[in-house]
């Protein structure tokens, strides 16, 4: 699946013109904790998240993310759009929620690119 097909599949709205619509997406990862993303995501995944601050784009750059989906129709602030424009990473907003989006993408054949992390016991 490429970015263009992804946008169609999720009724998405693409925010930046610098995104490469032909970029291939190898799988997906959903998380709201950026450290979780950095710890577990494998390269060339689509990142689904409820956050829309610029750090989402930074995290995506560091983790070689192919596209970002903001769930539940969130409108990102201008600084997030600007950064996505600069970095050329597709920033997409979809009206669906996280669960629905993960389901749709999984059903469409996208694999999980969340690598299991050992020793990530949580003290909370």
């Amino acid at each position, binding site marked *: 699946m490429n970015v263009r097909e992804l946008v169609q599949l999720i009724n998405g709205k693409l925010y930046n013109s610098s995104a490469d*619509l032909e970029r291939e997406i190898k799988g997906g990862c959903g998380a*709201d904790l950026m*450290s979780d993303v950095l*710890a577990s995501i494998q390269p060339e995944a689509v990142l689904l998240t409820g956050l829309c601050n610029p*750090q989402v784009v930074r995290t995506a750059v*560091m983790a070689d993310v192919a596209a970002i989906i903001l769930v539940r129709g969130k409108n990102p602030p201008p600084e997030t759009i600007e950064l996505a424009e600069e970095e050329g990473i597709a920033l997409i907003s979809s009206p669906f929620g996280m669960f629905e989006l993960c389901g749709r993408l999984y059903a469409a054949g996208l694999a999980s690119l969340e690598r299991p992390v050992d020793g990530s016991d949580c*003290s909370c």
Partner: protein
Amino acid sequence: MAKDSLFQGKLVSEQEAEHITRVEELSYELKVEEVMASNPFTVTPETTMSEVLELFRQKRISGAPVLSGEELVGIISMEDLIKCLQNSDLQSTVRTYMSTRLLTIRNTDPSIEALKLFVNSHFGRLPVVNEDGKLVGILTKGDITSGILKALQHDYQEEEVRRYRASHLFEDIESDRSSLILRYTIKQGDFTRGGAASSAIKRALIRLGANPQIARRTGIAVYEAEMNLIIHTTNGGIIRVEIEPKQISITVSDDGPGIEDVSLAMRPGFSTASDSVRELGFGAGMGLVNIQRCVDSMRLESVYGRGTNLRLKIFLQEQEIVGEGK
């Protein structure tokens, strides 16, 4: 770029504008004179059609502007020539067969204007004129396509050249030990810029020829450290990255407040971050753990009340060396 404006003859909505690609951008950026064929072969109204046939055949062109003195009076194309051949009328002159319904384009117009004319008029070529109305070139759709392709390749090559130069940085420098040092000052609380230094470091490594895994590991480690400076320090701090062909050494230092209990800070999930930081997706107590996972050696020293010093090293294998070519 002119958004919300006429694009290929129709009004572009904001939504469509979001899908405008680099190719479309280039059609606005590239001027007609950058893609046209200058000094085109021209004919006069008195030229015979058999001479036109010879010209088209020899020069492998399919059309030519018709000039009377300096003035553009028409255009003669392959189609006109075919019509003439059907009539077995090669002895007549260009005046009989040329098209005088003239559409011209200015040399300083963006190529998108020419594309619009091509789409609306179904003409195959457009004479290009300067501000005085003097013929300076001729333009076909093919010229625009190859102009855009060339520009795209140029964009691509520029980055390639930069990468090539950087990837051979250490090769011609003689010393017992060469390294490249990058320094970044990080401001406390600057969440908007947070990660800018890490992005720059990652990009530098890729230009230096680092493989994607090395660039990614370094990027993630430095990013977590950069966010720590932004979130936890009193006055921000400094990131220093020393790149050598076979190792990357990172020092992240600040002058306070320091970590009270380093071993507790290293425990996954332990965090002292505020709720507002957590809302940004950070402060889950995984930062230092992530850093450790990405690097080959990590030393964290902190004196509570004085500051923190984090030293990281990533060692590169023979096939991963940076700055010495490949």
